[in-house]
């Protein structure tokens, strides 16, 4: 009986983080729901116990159902039948199991039939589902769209759509178009007000839409005729029950084959507005994307776990030269690095998720009552950290997922190149992770501001204040040295950028990576301070991190302003 929660001590460790207490307090508001809902918790301990039990269910469904269907879903894939998506049969079974298990609307308030669980727990669920089948995680994880509806839509719209999400209807976010990918400001899908029917009408097409035939879709469309930029875009809800959207085709992809990536044609499709006009991209998509990026970080971490475990298992079973191959240093080192990257990816994911939870809950509370000065301070503090950490989490975990999947095949040797082992599917599935929801290059664009504004440096200094023990002290000292390199590199880049425009842009990925490796190492070090089992992986990760920091630092210190021209 595979259970992806019970077999993963590291995941369970993150549920016990001290900040969970504060998150639960904010999420449960004096446990008032207990008087109205028989499944609501009565205190912090009760809530944590419920989270653990629900995650255990996710672990079982992921291990027993979703993982078991992954191979057939990869082979069968979805199809277009009569202008609509028909999922692979395994996908249908996965959705049924998750609905029976009542795992939809995980983060939604109870008044919308949700489970009212923190984003941190939802990320854990996403991670486990992705470990079972990375492509399927897209379909299930898109329930996240409901969070955006919950945050910005009117009470009437929430009451109409959110209970349906809680009942298991799937979502989609229809953003990209043939000429608007990373540059969403160029979206052209037209929304016109139909006075007679009292609805907006959508016309045009969307491309690369994950789960494009979902029941409830958030659509980015141009409501302001004659405009050409982001300020003319609004966010609308299209309800599949109303009709008006056809699936023209499903893309034939390298990986995540069970997840239908659709081209959609809107023909007078009715839609309702979410929030204010013209704020579609500027405000709502940004919120949606931040949540989606955290989702990809969870998806990536799940893939790391799957790929690492596949390699570990194979290396223990495969014998060459009279012993199992995990006894050879070259393979063992690869496995240890894969483990360290998986743990680091997870550590970053939940550190970020906790920051998001605190500030998002305070933002919700703010809609109900005024915040105290202290609470406002707290919200600002965690909002900034969440904004800074989200691109780092997405970037590092998705890059690690690719590296771990690559190494997983390497450990399998020739067999790994064949279709007989899961590692080849994981390798294909991993490839999209550092591309969609903003490529790694775009995460750098979001993250570099936090290098400049000092978000990362301030947080690194906070981590440096933590007490170490005998086993971890040397790592703490090493990280201080790395931070000094980070400061030097930043100063050099800032100075030379003043001399030559473009110098900072050229080196921004390197600066972000230096900051990221230091932060990831710090979080693992903190875990090592608490639990001895983390000491070895923290050491291994730090060795890897310091190598990467040195490489980036060297590249910056040897780079002159003339390089800006050289790489043009």
């Amino acid at each position, binding site marked *: 009986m595979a259970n992806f929660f019970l077999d993963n001590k590291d995941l369970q460790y993150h549920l016990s983080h001290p900040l969970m207490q504060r998150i639960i307090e904010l999420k449960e508001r004096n446990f008032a729901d207990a008087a109205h809902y028989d*499944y609501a918790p009565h205190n912090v301990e009760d809530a944590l116990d419920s989270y653990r039990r629900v995650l255990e269910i996710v672990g079982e469904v992921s291990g027993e159902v979703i993982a078991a269907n992954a191979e057939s879903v990869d082979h069968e894939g979805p199809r277009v039948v009569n202008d609509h998506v028909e999922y692979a049969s395994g996908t249908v079974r996965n959705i049924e199991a998750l609905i*029976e*298990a*009542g795992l939809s609307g995980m983060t939604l308030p109870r008044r919308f039939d949700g489970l009212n669980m923190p984003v941190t727990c939802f990320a854990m669920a996403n991670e486990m589902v992705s470990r079972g089948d990375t492509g399927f995680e897209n379909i299930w994880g898109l329930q996240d769209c409901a969070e955006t509806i919950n945050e910005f839509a009117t009470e009437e719209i929430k009451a109409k759509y959110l209970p349906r999400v809680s009942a298991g209807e799937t979502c989609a976010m229809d953003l990209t178009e043939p000429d608007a990918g990373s540059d969403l400001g160029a979206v052209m899908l037209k929304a016109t007000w139909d006075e007679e029917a009292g609805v907006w009408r959508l016309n045009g097409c969307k491309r690369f839409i994950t789960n494009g035939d979902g029941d409830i879709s958030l659509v980015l469309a141009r409501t302001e005729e004659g405009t050409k930029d982001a300020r003319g875009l609004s966010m609308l809800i299209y309800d599949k029950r109303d009709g008006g959207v056809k699936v023209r085709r499903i893309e034939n992809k390298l990986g995540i084959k069970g997840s239908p990536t659709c081209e959609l044609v809107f023909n007078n499709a009715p839609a309702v507005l979410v929030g204010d006009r013209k704020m579609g991209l500027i405000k709502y998509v940004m919120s949606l994307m931040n949540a989606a990026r955290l989702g990809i970080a969870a998806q990536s971490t799940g893939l790391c776990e799957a790929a690492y475990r596949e390699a570990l298992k194979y290396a223990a079973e495969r014998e060459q030269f009279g012993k199992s191959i995990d006894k050879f240093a070259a393979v063992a080192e690869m496995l240890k690095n894969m483990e360290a990257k998986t743990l680091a990816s997870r550590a970053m994911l939940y550190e970020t998720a906790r920051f998001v939870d605190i500030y998002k809950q305070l933002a919700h509370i703010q809609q109900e009552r005024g915040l105290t000065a202290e609470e406002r301070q707290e919200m600002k503090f965690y909002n900034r950290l969440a904004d800074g950490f989200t691109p780092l989490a997405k970037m590092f975990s998705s890059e690690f997922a690719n590296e771990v999947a690559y190494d997983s095949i390497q450990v399998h040797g020739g067999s790994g190149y064949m279709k007989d082992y899961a590692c080849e599917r994981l390798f294909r599935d991993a490839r999209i992770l550092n591309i969609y929801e903003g490529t790694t290059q775009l995460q750098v664009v979001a993250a570099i501001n936090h290098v400049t504004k000092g978000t990362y440096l301030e947080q690194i200094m906070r981590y440096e204040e933590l007490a170490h023990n005998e086993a971890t002290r040397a790592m703490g000292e090493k990280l201080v040295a790395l931070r000094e390199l980070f400061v030097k590199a930043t100063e050099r880049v800032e100075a030379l950028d003043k001399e030559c425009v473009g110098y900072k842009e050229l080196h921004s990925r390197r600066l972000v990576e230096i900051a990221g490796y230091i932060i990831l190492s710090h979080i693992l070090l903190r875990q090592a301070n608490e639990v001895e089992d983390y000491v070895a992986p923290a050491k291994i990760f730090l060795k890897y991190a310091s190598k990467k920091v040195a490489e980036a630092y060297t590249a910056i210190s040897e780079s002159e302003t003339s390089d800006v021209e050289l790489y043009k």
Partner: protein
Amino acid sequence: MKKVTKIVVMAKQVPDTRNVGKDAMTPEGTVNRAALAAIFNPEDLNALEMALQMKDRMEGAQVYVLTMGPQRAADVIREAMWRGADGGYLLSGKEFAGSDTLATSYALSCALRKIEPDIVVAGRQAIDGDTAQVGPQVAQKLDLPQVTYAEELIDICDTEITIKRRLERGSEVVVSPLPAVITVNASAKECRPRNAKRVMKYKYALATSELAVATEDRKAFIEERPYLHIIEFAAADVNPDPEQLGLSGSPTKVKKIENVVFQAKEAKKLTADDKDIESLMQELIASHTLG
């Protein structure tokens, strides 16, 4: 016409004999229960699913689990509640200890007389005893029709039930009047998973004897929420003939238990001549493998 309102699933908590490690048996040759996890008997889970499907189709019907065993067997009832059952009955007491299938089916039938179900559903057999006798014996004692080897619920109404049975060389569809006893095969639909809200709602459910030793806070909590109280029957509650319970009601006598250890021995090469074949035959007869 009586409506179907009460469906009872007979379930058993069993040692997980599917994952047997090296310490699964004691040196004396009995099952080392401490080394094996106690689980919901797998075919009883299939039975629970079929009962829940009946409930899905019959408005107003409720599913209850009946289990006989020590206090910790209440785990089976909680597990069933998390998956969709409305409640359960724990039949517990030292009088029941040592029951074979005859005494077990007698005790269960006494409890069922009290519960008065409209349908009784059970797994075909438990993985610890593998007898497949309890379900049919209960039906016989209650003088109810029985449908064994059930694989699929085809149809149900207040007066009769239509079931597809799995047979050795195919399947057959039978219609039985209700009430009836149905025993369900492992080939039937797997049980639905635990449901998140149900787990949160029922996680603190306790049987009477568990409640007796719970903290005051927990007692007060459950008192306010009667759905968290798992009904517990002691022997006296189900009006049995004491002679037919437990060891005294169990004619089965175990003559001898042998601890069989499979060990890979050195390979032996035999030629096809009569002498080698004869010696192999003798060896197999001596080890009771043949004859």
